[in-house]
């Protein structure tokens, strides 16, 4: 039996001190992704198969570069949480699960580091 009040338990966010953190962050990035991904889809279609000069000229536009950076950050956070849920749902072996959860983060950080560096490099003038 717990002697703590319901409010006290909610404030403590549970034993892991995280509580609804993932749930909330997934919704937060989902809402952010709606306008960002609309931009992203239009940008991709507008540059489908486009030549080098056209793509680099577009990505050197500061507004495009900032938007693309935000697309990457928001989408990658959302993506990492989503894949974590999939791994936790289907992978039951403790070793494999821990390994895949680590790989999930490594993949996200690697893709993010490479693409954000690329966007910044082009944004600052190639």
């Amino acid at each position, binding site marked *: 039996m717990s002697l703590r009040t319901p409010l006290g338990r909610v404030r403590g966010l549970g034993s892991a001190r995280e509580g609804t953190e993932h749930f909330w962050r997934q919704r937060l990035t989902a809402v952010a992704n709606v306008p960002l991904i609309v931009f992203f889809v239009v940008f991709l279609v507008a540059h489908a*198969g486009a030549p080098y000069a056209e793509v680099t000229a577009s990505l050197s536009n500061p507004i495009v570069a900032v938007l693309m950076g935000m697309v990457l950050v928001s989408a990658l956070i959302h993506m990492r949480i989503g894949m974590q849920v999939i791994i936790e749902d289907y992978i039951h072996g403790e070793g494999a699960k821990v390994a895949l959860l680590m790989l999930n983060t490594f993949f996200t950080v690697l*893709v993010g580091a490479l*693409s954000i560096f690329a966007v910044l490099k082009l944004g600052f003038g190639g």
Partner: protein
Amino acid sequence: MASATGTKRERPLSPHLTIYRPYPTMVMSIVHRITGGALYVGTFFVAWWLVAAASGEAYFNWVNGILGSVLGLIVLFGYTWVLVHHMAGGIRHLVWDTGRGLEKETSTTFAWVTLAASASLTVIIWIAVFIVR
């Protein structure tokens, strides 16, 4: 699950995918997860394309020969549909988070609406962008 004697005993499972007849909300739920997984893979190609653009013309042209090929463009069309569909499904989830639209008929309608919306929106975006391009 291991018992006290160390032997593995099969536990009964609740009815699963192979038991139930597919219905719209179930299929859309599965599609939402599959599209999420596909988008995960897609980020690799987005990063590749961006890194290629930042690496210089020679490497970009080589990468563009693959990603900008007919097959590459077909995959890109599929990728944009998956993005839009996952977004439509996500908006449906955000509506559900408010406690609305959970009735059987409404949620089934939502399932069909997300499919129709994603397919038509993707085609509209491609046509509109190519007219402006």
